[in-house]
């Protein structure tokens, strides 16, 4: 998956649901141009790319006739990467479960006065391992 990146997520964060796993928008990048790919998520957890959708575009934004999703800075993806929205502006793309947990716990500490965020952090850590 050398040329494949997470360029955003199939979600528009209009409600506070952080932190949470979310579905990545995956694109192939060749010569600076992006092409979207469809994928299947296997259990045990594995992202399997199935086929490309449409052609190459100069920017991720131009891939969508109507943009109702959240785009982000491209981050390289692996088959076992988990994609977690820590906030509207912070997307974690990481395969190492220990690092994921540490990052979620760090953000939980920052939001220690928000019991709902703490509860969702607990749920998300459970989701990381299930």
């Amino acid at each position: 998956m050398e040329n494949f990146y997470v360029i955003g997520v199939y979600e528009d964060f209009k409600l506070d649901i952080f932190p949470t796993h979310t579905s990545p928008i995956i694109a192939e990048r060749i010569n600076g141009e992006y092409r979207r790919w469809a994928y299947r998520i296997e259990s045990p957890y594995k992202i399997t790319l199935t086929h490309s959708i449409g052609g190459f575009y100069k920017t991720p934004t131009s891939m969508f006739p109507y943009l109702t999703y959240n785009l982000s800075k491209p981050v390289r993806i692996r088959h076992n990467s988990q994609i977690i929205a820590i906030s509207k502006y912070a997307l974690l793309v990481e395969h190492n479960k220990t690092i994921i947990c540490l990052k979620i716990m760090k953000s939980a500490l920052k939001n220690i006065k928000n019991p709902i965020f703490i509860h969702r952090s607990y749920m998300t850590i459970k989701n990381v391992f299930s």
Partner: protein
Amino acid sequence: MGNGKNRSQKIRNHKMAIFSKVLTLNKLHMLEKINGNLSDASQTDYFNIGMPIENPPLLRGSIVIEMNISFLTDNIDSFEAGSPVDTGGIKFGFLDPKHDKELFLQMLHCDYTKFHKLTKELFELPLNSLNKLVTHNACPSFKPILEKHFTNSVIEFMYNEKNPHAWLFEFSLRKEYKLTEKHINKIHVPNTYLSNSTIKNIKYKLRNKVITYNPKYGIEHRGR
């Protein structure tokens, strides 16, 4: 014995005779409708017969709503248009009917009466055919029904096309459409969304119709 068998088949058919919608939190107005709140953000929305397309889902979302036939019949006044084929797929070139686009879209167009009749006839098919319908696969038993409503060029296009979007059976409703507890069979939401107050209200209102799933695995792994 025969009656019992017929009844159990009717119950199974009833469970599969659904409409669905995949949404992201961009469609907050739909969640507000369920909660009984009027929203200025309301807009025309598209729905389809059967499950969302999932092999794999091309445009993903986080929430899946499954609705029963009353959703269509109660919204007769808001009905805008129906089509057996995904009209967005034709407009944006993902499906190529090899006809003039506008003319082909006109051939697909269904008003309420036509779409309701089509839906009722399709939902009465035997279980095996119904299973194909809700998963957006072609089946020979659809043909006599389609022939009553569409021209040969539409039917030929559908049977020659492998893309499940050619068998979407979509319809659109104007923004004033109703979506209430009565219309909903199930609503699937990520387990992390449940602690948000909007989703919590929906859970309170719909009780056991709200089913949670682990969002790490995406909507295709939601419980059935």
